[in-house]
């Protein structure tokens, strides 16, 4: 009897060895039905410095460009820095307004809106090619025959953000000047939510035209010269005050001073220069709210026409 039992055992072992669960090596058991609510994040001993960057370029591009700069800030302040991105400028403005971010890289029109609504404060402004201005560029595919905004009538036009100065407000202003509204003037419009995607939309002829930030355009073309061959610039706007770095009006004065001094001296170190180069900026400078008055006038015109 015992021998028979042994024989059976051997048989069972061989049969069991053939079952699929034995031929696959598993790494542990999990009961998927044993669930519990996700733990709420603990208050960390060190609260990170939260920096928002408006979606001037695509989210991944932003991460790649700003990581070096933010790491440098974190190293200097000896606290972790968290990059916060949102799809629209308005969402970034809300984060600044609610104090959910300590510092934000915003768009010019967003700053004006924030300043007027809740007193968004200027911290510093980037200086590019020795200037603190930028332009809105009207771009079309390189094989397009359009020479001005008037030639884009009935075409497809790509806006960047609903409140972007260079990507939405200025081209709207141009259409207004032609005595029309974008809805009537263009056959179709859409939002790309970032300038580099608007450039891509024109390069790939998804859109017949778009208006983009001159700084982003220059940066994109310098990185990918082929892009310049696919696109031609048919119009350049007057100079606008450059998109600034802002803070909440209720920020602790000490932190504001620390951040300001850090950014203003960024270009003095080799690592700082490297980080600034990554975002296409020479250095940070102080800027006054009056630098944006021209833009306020232009925005006023657009709002009135509406």
């Amino acid at each position, binding site marked *: 009897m015992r021998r028979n039992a042994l024989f059976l055992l051997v048989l069972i072992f061989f049969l069991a060895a*053939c079952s699929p669960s034995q031929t696959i090596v*598993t790494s542990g058991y*999990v009961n*998927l039905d044993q669930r519990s*609510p996700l733990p709420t994040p603990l208050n960390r001993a060190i609260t990170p410095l939260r920096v928002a960057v408006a979606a001037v370029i695509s989210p991944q591009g*932003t991460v790649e460009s700003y990581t070096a700069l933010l790491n440098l800030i974190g190293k200097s302040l000896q606290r972790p820095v968290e990059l916060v*991105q949102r*799809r629209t400028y308005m969402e970034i403005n809300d984060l600044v307004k609610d104090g959910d971010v300590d510092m934000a890289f915003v768009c010019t029109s967003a700053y004006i809106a924030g300043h007027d609504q809740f007193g968004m404060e200027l911290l510093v402004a980037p200086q590019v090619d020795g200037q603190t201005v930028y332009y809105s560029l009207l771009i079309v595919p390189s094989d397009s025959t359009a020479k001005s905004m008037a030639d884009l009538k009935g075409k497809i036009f790509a806006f960047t953000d609903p409140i972007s100065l260079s990507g939405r407000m200025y081209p709207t202003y141009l259409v207004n000047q032609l005595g029309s509204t974008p809805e009537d003037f263009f056959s179709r419009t859409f939002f790309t939510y970032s300038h580099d995607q608007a450039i891509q939309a024109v390069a790939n002829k998804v859109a017949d035209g778009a208006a983009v930030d001159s700084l982003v355009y220059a940066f994109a073309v310098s990185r990918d010269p082929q892009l310049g061959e696919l696109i031609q610039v048919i119009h350049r706007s007057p100079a606008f005050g450059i998109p600034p770095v802002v803070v909440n009006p209720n920020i602790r004065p000490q932190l504001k001073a620390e951040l300001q001094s850090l950014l203003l001296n960024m270009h003095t170190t080799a690592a700082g220069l490297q980080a600034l180069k990554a975002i296409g900026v020479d250095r940070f400078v102080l800027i006054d709210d009056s630098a944006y008055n021209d833009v306020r006038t232009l925005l006023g015109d657009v709002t009135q026409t509406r």
Partner: protein
Amino acid sequence: MKIKPLFARFWEIAGAVNIRIKILGMALGLVLLLGTGITLQVRIALTKTVSSQLEKQSISVARDLAARSTDLILLNDLFSLHRLLQETQINNANVLYAFILDSNGRVIAHTFGDSFPLALIEKNSVSPQDHHHTVVLQTNDGLVWDTAVPILDGRAGIARIGLSDVLLRDSLRDMTGQLILTTALVSLIGVTVAALLTWILTHPILELVQATRQVAKGDFSYRVPRWANDEIGDLAEAFNLMTAELAHADDLRREKEVLRRQLLESVIRTQEEERQRISRELHDSTSQSLTSLKVGLHTLQTILTDGEAKKQTKDLYEITSQTLEDVHALAVQLRPATLDDLGLAAALQRFINDWQVRYHIPVDILVYLGNERLPGEVETALYRITQEAMTNIARHASAHKVSILLEKRGEEVVGVIEDDGQGFESHQFISGEHLGIIGMRERAELLGGKLTIESEIGKGTSLFVRIPLNHQRSSSQAISEGGQES
């Protein structure tokens, strides 16, 4: 040591069933063995293939999810992220779950609903520079291929998806089902073919068995048809040849037996006639002469006066008287006249009386033969058998008592002669010493009767004889009956 009794046990069962079952068992066993082997083999192969497919699918879905979720994570668009996960699950039916961990390892979106199986998080991880990392997890829902893919080199977090093994289980189940069905079908065909084959194989063998039985019964006319031109066909032919040879040999034997019987019969008859003649001669002629001589001598004795001569004559008279008695006894022994004149009962009674006187052993004799005389040859045979038996008892048995029963029962005569002597072992009388016993048997058999002797050392001897009265004196019948006895 372990196999031997197992094999013996197997053979005990397998050896006991007939060839039909053996061949069916072989066919069925082979098909089942093959079916099982192939099923197991295919299951293993299929498991490997499908699991590698599942792993590849798991990686591709996770990579896709990671690429598509990057912007949503960076923009903190949790709603779209959630929808992306749901779409991933909808578009890939075997995605059991999907979830996204942020760069701090917190779950920011998942497909589990309100709560989350926290134990799952630590079961798989991936380093930022890796392309992906896949593990197989055992879960309550079966096996799960869990792949982790870093999002934006891990800076945006990790995408995890779990692929259930439903596909594997389903394909294994379907394939096993199909193979079992095929095996069953092939088994059915195999059994049918084996049954046919068995019939073809065993039919001629069974016919041979039948033929063998017929031959055993003595029927040499039965012939086996040559079924097929194979070894069994050869066997059938050889069998038929053997049967023919046997038939021929049997005929020869019968012929010789008939001759032997006839010869025996004539020898016995001649012997009996000769004895009768001599006995009569002794009785009629020699006895008469001796009686005359005796009477003469008696007369001479009374005439003579010389003492010496008278004494001589008296001696001669005595010798003559003794010789007459001896001649008389010899005549009786050779062929008692009583047997011819008064019948078996009287002859036996007289013989037994003489025997008792001679050997001083008491004999109980009971003879119930009715009033009619038995046929002459039966009387002679029974008398001679009794004579031989009593001679044997006197010579060898050292008996103290003998009983004889002779009875006519319907159409046969039955005789029993028992003694309480030392007995003997049955094999002894088969050897040549006891020709007498063989003679007794021959006598009985010549008349279509039967004679048996039972004996055991120390327990005496019993002789049984049975002779039919209506026996036809046809030699062939006597022989065929005799043939069955031998």
